[in-house]
């Protein structure tokens, strides 16, 4: 059972990492606009013009 001495701190550390990650994402405003975020991911505006895929009808 000595292995618990390592495993438990590791488990707690990883869990804590998740918590800190969540608190950071909350603080940096990533949950402020869930509606907009789901559309922004589809936008090609961040690519240089020559790398954008073919435009479909109706896209800006």
């Amino acid at each position, binding site marked *: *059972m000595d292995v*618990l001495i390592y495993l*438990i701190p590791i*488990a*707690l550390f990883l*869990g*804590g990492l*998740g*918590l800190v990650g*969540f*608190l950071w994402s*909350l603080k940096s405003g990533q*949950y*402020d*606009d*869930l*509606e*907009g975020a789901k*559309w*922004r991911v*589809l*936008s090609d*505006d961040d690519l240089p013009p020559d790398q954008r895929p073919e435009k479909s009808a*109706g*896209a*800006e």
Partner: protein
Amino acid sequence: MPRVRVAEGRRTCPLRNRENTITIAQADRFRDHDAMNVHSRDWSAFVTKAPSGASHIELAVEGIHCAACMARIEKGLGRLPGVENARLNLTTHRLAVDWQPDATNAGAVVDKLESLGFKAHPFDPGEMRGRDDAASRHLLRALAVAGFGGMNIMLLSVSVWSGNVTDITPETRDFFHWLSALIALPVVAYAGRPFFVSAWAALKARSLNMDVPISIGVTLAVAMSMLQTIQHAEDVYFDSAVMLLFFLLIGRYLDQNMRRRTRSFAENLAALRAETARLIRPDGSTGDVPLSQVEPGMLVLVAAGERVSVDGVIEEGTSEIDQSLVTGETRLADVGLGDRVHAGTLNAAGVLKVRVTAAAKGTLLDEVTRLLETASQAKSRYIRLADRAAALYAPLVHTAAALAFIGWLIAGIGWQPSLVIAISVLIITCPCALGLAIPAVQVVASGILFNKGVLLNSGDALERFATVDTVVFDKTGTLTLPDAALANADEVRAEDLELAGRLALASRHPLAAALARASGARDPVTGAREAAGSGVKATVDGVECRLGSPKFCDVAEDAAAAALALHPDASLIVLARAGAAPVLFAVRQALRPDAVSVVADLKRRGLHVEILSGDHQAAVAMVADELGVADYAARLDPRGKIARLEALKAEGRKVLMVGDGLNDAPALAAAHVSMSPVSAVHLSQAAADAVFLGESLAAVPAALRTAHRAHVAMRQNLVLAAAYNCIAVPFAIAGFVTPLLAALAMSASSIIVTANSLRLRFGKAD
């Protein structure tokens, strides 16, 4: 040209329909009109400065339908020189813009948005969301911490539970218990704060709310587990305490989030209705400022066609004003130097300069404010279902726990095992299901209502909606549409209507606006000149035409009287041409399109319907007749409306009041529950329990129906929670409850209650 750019807007977003482009074209025309006749607007009062020197403004934007609109706005503004950052929040429909103050200004940003086809209006930086956002973020952080703690403790607890029935050594178990304690103590201290604070506040006020038993249960569970850990016991309850907090925080967060969504929507509406005043500064310059910055003694400019945003006395100019939002009176009133005007009235004809005054003794506003205060105080006596349940539940549970303690003590098992059993009673009774029973239903029901265009101001309004047996309507602006409409379209020739409409486009008088809307005209007559307060004159195809009051167009008084006899509650506009008979248009406030069917529906459902109006007898009688309402009263002042509501209350009736005017505000606060349309004055919206959007009155029966179903679900949930306790408590008192059983029971009861609430959403559509 504006229209070209508007057409561009139509191409990219499939949802921007033709009607929309018409209104935008009209808005453009008004803006040009504004720019020519008055001045350009100055938004500097809304701009905040960032430490980096950049200017920042937050705008509520109207007309956003999809992601394409978002891309258009952000890219369009990005092309504006000087703009550093423009980000639209698609959830709240708010836009944040940062720019370099030397390169551009807020006016250019708003103008650019308008040219893109979006109406935007800045927020008052003074009263922005702040507090709500902070509360909601704090709950989310507490939820994350409780979730983290719960998962890790559960990991250790499951090991202990399975070890207890197999071969765990006492040393390992103690180690796990100490680890659990190490996690649980800070987690409970942090995540439990929302409950501890609220429970403490309730206790200080010598009352009980649901948070009191929650706080006692959690604190005792942690304290006892600490003791058990020190004494090397087999069972500890750290996981129960943290899980309890986790479940309750979910309910709390959902509740807060629903309120925040409603409020941010309401704030957008308020901002888009441009609740600003155009201040005339001592040096003669003008600028738009948020109402919160206007103080008595300041001078405010009100252009024709605008709503008066302040209470005050006219210092310069004469005009006609439409007081329908304030008194319910639909006829225009003449005002001039020294007359008092109220916020919410519509300036129909000339430009006014108004000196802002505080609500002086004896004025309508003073009377309304006073009545409103009394009415709100009387209303705060309502006790919410959740608090009634808590008041019943807490003493019962605590007595049961105390009896279990005393009983086992007498049975002679020693004080500590007795205390363990007593605390396990508190844990297993699980205020968790009770704590979720009502908020879960409120969240689901208000979400349903939100989608139907009804915004609830308070969660407990649902409970009060459910018991309504009488509906009282205001007439003007509630049963009727806030804007006037043409009443005799079928009596006039189409070409007359079109010409009249084109002439009407030159005026901002509300009656002319109604005529322009009815005709669908989009092409104003060039060279039309408006004589303030009387009409428009122009030469069309070499013929002189006039549009305006019967007097302005030289119509004989008996002809006008004959036309008025046909439409007793209408106002007349005349189109006169040289060499042709004058054409009379009757314009009146039309009933909301579904008013008749809604009132019939309410009556069919056994509700008593009444109309209480401040308008004159003939107008009210006509509407009541059309709707088939037998009980109505006209010419009521705010005091009269309250008196009638009191009389209904004395009969034992639960009244839903629906109204929009300033004169309705006290009645809205005094009624058992109240609603107002989104076009209502600010004071009334604040006094009402719910606000509904759009032209349809169907929101009223929809709210009643949803509230009824929500109320049923709430009571079901309370019964479920009580039934669960009836089964669980004997087990706990008998001492059979282990931490594993407590965790299972707690999760199961919470899930059952939540599932029952969600059933509302999938229930039969109505």
